[in-house]
């Protein structure tokens, strides 16, 4: 269901990116990067209109003809970005939320691995494999 998943660190540098079609990785890098501005905007408006922005899930960041880009930011300022095809109209908001929650759980396990140094790119094979399966069928 998703075509690209990215994990962005506290410093806004990518720690992990995985695309269904690896040839498009460069294109997605660009899209993910652009979406970070929207993330910052959403977070900084949090002070003004409190309420829904308390949620870690930020919802749709922006959409193009081809893609919809969703965002999620943890309390530790790690950003997850998910790109889905706009043609996928069956996708429900709840499914996107579930996907993010799974990513978040997976990510916390990576951080809890004593051999992972926080801030480093994520090289865990388990993480990579599971993210791929989440992208394909949300499991």
């Amino acid at each position, binding site marked *: 269901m998703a075509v690209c998943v990215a994990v962005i660190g506290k410093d806004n540098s990518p720690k992990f990116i995985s695309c269904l079609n690896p040839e498009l990785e460069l294109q997605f890098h660009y899209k993910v990067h652009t979406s970070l501005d929207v993330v910052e905007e959403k977070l900084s408006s*949090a002070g003004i209109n409190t309420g829904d922005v308390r949620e870690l899930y930020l919802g749709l960041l922006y959409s193009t003809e081809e893609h919809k880009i969703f965002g999620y*930011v*943890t*309390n*530790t300022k790690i950003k997850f970005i998910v790109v889905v095809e706009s043609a996928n109209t069956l996708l429900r908001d709840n499914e996107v939320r579930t996907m993010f929650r799974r990513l*978040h*759980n997976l990510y916390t396990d990576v*951080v809890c691995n004593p051999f992972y140094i*926080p801030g480093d790119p994520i090289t865990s094979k388990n993480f990579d494999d599971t993210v791929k399966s989440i992208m394909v069928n949300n499991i």
Partner: protein
Amino acid sequence: MADEVSFEFLHTELVSYVLSSTEKDKKPCDLSTLEYIGFSAGYRIIERQTKEWPRFKDELETMKFICTDFWTSINKKPVDNLRTNHQGVYVLQDNAFRFLTRLSNSRQYLEVAPRYVAFTCGLIRGALANLGINSMVTAEVQSMPACRFHIQVQRT
């Protein structure tokens, strides 16, 4: 799930490992390793503990979470007193700190007390660091088993 006692056994052994390895090198008692192990554990555990938590609004709310919810769950009881000067200094008073209650209350143990608080200083500093707050955490033991933790937020 591991029992709470298991963590206490591990902590005691950690303290004696750090002490024996500094003794070996003839260095003065250096607790920074202990503090660092706490930091590393704190940094990681907070990632798990804030997973289901709504986004923190600001520093005060984050500090409140650390000094109340997080502290209580780690130490199995709330702090006895919490104060702040609203300028980045937070003082947590625990009248019977977990790792000190097992030592005798007599004065002779007072000088070894810093060993039993260094891990927790690191733990708090690590948890805060991952939540985006750089701080200095120190502890002061004046009479056993009470302990006062000072958190000083670094705003630079």
